[in-house]
């Protein structure tokens, strides 16, 4: 098995669509494993989110949640779970296994292998009934997922952001909630779900990441056994990032009986011909705009005008979407909106201070330099760049961040155009 450097990891290709990335270090007490698959966002998103929930209900050897939990407890409290996230126009399912390094506990050899065996059983050897997923497990998890999707409204900040995206990207895959829709979960036959799962196992591209005190060749060999043999997977397809040109900025106001209103502004970012330098400049521009207490949004909307408790911005460089979010009082909507948009114009014109530029730069550098201290951060760093077709080391990105100029930041901001303004207007009376 050939291992070559890829960013700060060693990389092995098990086949054209199955990759392993290993980072060996003695500095953690935990072995951290992530198994990621991704698919384009489409109407099957909810089924792909449902399958892990059903797999988590039990394996052939441990056919219930409680038995699976007991096995994990016996492995010194190993954690085994999954998450579903949006990565550009893709939906990624990320399995995680975190297990204590056996060096710290008594009477235990082969702890990591035992954990990987359990993960393999969960992924490949689920408990079945008549050759398909158990009917009761599928139905219970279908209901749980429906309730979970309906529960988005409980978190007003996330709900407002999701509503804004639905309006802004109406008709495009990016508008879809990464966990899917309630409608697509109306009828789920266990046989159909199982058949889909078998297809996905065989055909989806998979990336596996491991961080811990390990022998790279040995761990690659173990991870090779984590997936079904003879896969016919194709490499991941890139998502579309070309923006649909828009003319006028859209507005959308919805009322909710809440105390704090939520202002969410969606902007399209032109990602055409973005080289490595501009990719980094875009990230730094977002930090200057709304990525911390030094940022323009925090200073102008919150500190100076006391209009908001929070005022931040987030940037998805895979899709080319920048989102400004503020928690405000309804009567301050227009002022908060105008001041927020003004900050973007100011940056695009290059009218920001050297001190602001340096503080943004230091914020990003501090974050980057600290990544090697967190196993999950190391993995996230490579995975998110990889999704953009890039495989840098942390040192390379640090170098680029150090040299980003005022002009490059302004150019980055010039690629950003406001598209949709969403307001969740709070109608609860002041207490």
């Amino acid at each position, binding site marked *: 098995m050939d291992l070559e450097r890829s960013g700060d990891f060693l990389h092995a290709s098990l086949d054209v669509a199955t990759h392993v990335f290993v980072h060996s*270090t*003695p*500095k953690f*007490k*935990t072995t951290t494993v992530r198994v990621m698959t991704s698919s384009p966002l489409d109407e099957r998103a909810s089924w792909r989110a449902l399958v892990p929930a059903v797999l988590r209900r039990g394996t052939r050897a441990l056919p*219930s*949640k*409680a038995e699976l939990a*007991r096995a*994990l*407890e*016996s*492995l*010194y*409290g*190993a954690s085994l779970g999954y998450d579903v996230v949006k990565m550009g126009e893709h939906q990624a399912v990320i399995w995680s296994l975190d*297990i204590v390094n056996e060096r*710290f*506990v008594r009477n235990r050899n082969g702890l990591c292998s035992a954990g990987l065996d359990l993960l393999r059983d969960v992924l490949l050897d689920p408990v079945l009934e008549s050759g398909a997923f158990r009917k009761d497990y599928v139905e*219970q998890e279908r209901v*749980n997922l429906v*309730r*979970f999707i*309906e*529960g*988005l*409204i*409980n978190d*007003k900040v996330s709900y407002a952001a999701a509503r804004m995206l639905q309006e802004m990207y109406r008709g495009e895959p990016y508008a879809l909630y990464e966990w899917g829709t309630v409608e697509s979960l109306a009828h789920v036959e266990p046989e159909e779900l199982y058949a889909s799962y078998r297809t996905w196992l065989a055909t989806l591209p998979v990336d596996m990441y491991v961080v811990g005190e390990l022998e790279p060749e040995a761990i690659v060999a173990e991870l090779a056994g984590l997936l079904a043999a003879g896969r016919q997977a194709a490499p991941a397809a890139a998502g579309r990032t070309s923006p649909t040109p828009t003319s006028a900025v859209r507005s959308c106001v919805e009322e909710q*009986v*809440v*105390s*704090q209103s939520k202002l969410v502004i969606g902007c399209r970012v032109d990602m055409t011909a973005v080289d490595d330098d501009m990719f980094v400049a875009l990230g730094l521009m977002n930090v200057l705009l709304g990525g*911390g*207490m*030094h940022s323009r949004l925090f200073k102008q909307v*919150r500190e100076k005008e*006391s209009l908001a*408790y929070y005022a931040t911005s987030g940037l998805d460089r895979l899709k080319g979407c920048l989102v400004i979010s503020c*928690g*405000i*009082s309804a009567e301050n909507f227009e002022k908060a909106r105008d001041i927020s948009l003004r900050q973007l114009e100011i940056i695009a014109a290059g009218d920001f201070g050297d*001190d602001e530029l*340096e*503080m943004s730069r*230091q*914020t990003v*550098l*501090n*974050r980057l*330099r*600290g990544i*090697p*201290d*967190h*196993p999950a951060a190391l993995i996230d760093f490579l995975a998110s760049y990889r999704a953009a077709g890039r495989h840098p080391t942390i040192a390379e990105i640090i170098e680029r961040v150090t040299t980003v100029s005022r002009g490059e930041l302004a150019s980055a901001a010039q690629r950003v155009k406001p598209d949709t303004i969403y307001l969740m207007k*709070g109608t*609860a009376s*002041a*207490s």
Partner: protein
Amino acid sequence: MTHPSLHNTVGEDVRFRLAAGSLPVILNPRPGFTRTFVVIGTNFGSVDQSFVDPLSGTCIEVPSGVAHFLEHRLFEDSEGDVSDRFTENGASSNARTGFTSTAYLFSCTSNLASNLELLLDFVQEPYFAPEGIAREQGIIEQEIRMYEDDPDWRIFFNLLNALYHVHPVRSDIAGTVDSIHRITPEILEACYRAFYHPSNMALAIAGAFDVEETLALVESNLARHARATGRPHVRPLHPEPDTVRSPEVSQSMVVSRPKIAIGFKEVATGGNGEDLERRDLLSHLAIDLALGRSSAHHEALYSEGLIDESFAASYTLEPGFGFSSISSDTNDPERLRRRVLDILRSVAEEGFSTDSFERLRRRCEGQYIRMFDALDSSAFAFLDSRFRGVSPFAALELLRGITLEEVEQRFREHFHPDRAAVSMVLPK
């Protein structure tokens, strides 16, 4: 001069020192790490609403939300916002207020010396300009409104309100819109005098740093500041009955389905640090054995669709107060309440198996060890254990020696039917 390391089995080099004869400092150098995480805390939180003012010698009462307000205000000094200076120095800073402590922290990968000086300076040099206070009231009012809309925050504080008659743990940590408007510079100064002195505080440092250099910096910084004196704060006992104030409380909010939190009031809240640590550990194990993911009861409730992954069971214990909370989203809160109370009753009679106990003990050990991977959680563990008066590794040591009988006894003591309250959030 080297400072001996605290013995532990997680492979960490942890040392203790009383800097300038007054400030407890816990140091955890880690070769191979690039970050340094620093947190300084004071033993003063949202429950401290009445205390003796050292200046006048009289007992004063302050509005709820003062500890949190003070946390916000300390971030501004005569030159402006301190967090900006941290950012210029390449550090990220933050602060948090809890029931019994307030903590100020930063993490950095460079310029440790200037960041540490900045932290120690701003915490020791309060500046309470009136115009700053008015502005802060506006910001905190927004923060309070944000929490008002959070169903998980509301269900929890409503539960505390139902459990407690008078104890200040029932007050919202940030206070209310009304209470924060009653905060004056004089009140902030009195709180600062009473609580912000080195013997009532602690400093924890974890990550990439040199022990001797860093200690020398801390000591000379302390020496440069006016020597504030005082004794570690001892919380007064509140005339809080064993009974709950109200068995049930309910609030309507914009949520997709009902939420329920069943809580029990702890009455065994006395003893020294080691007593509390032991009781805390036993209570956590007891709850996990009864209703954790590996329990038959959890599986039953889950399969019936009465609970889902939002289910959580927690336990909190401080000198003078404690409580458990068992919560979940559920379509049938009444039925879930009955089932949980039935389960708790039957567990009190049946106890637990030795196998389950040994498994949970192992899980607890592994998760405890892994907690020390992160600089942040390690530093907070050092701080919290200092305020509790135990070694940061006390729990791990106690874990080895506790017995199943002790866990079962603790379970029966805590989950008393007369001390239960239920908090619900229902869809509008």
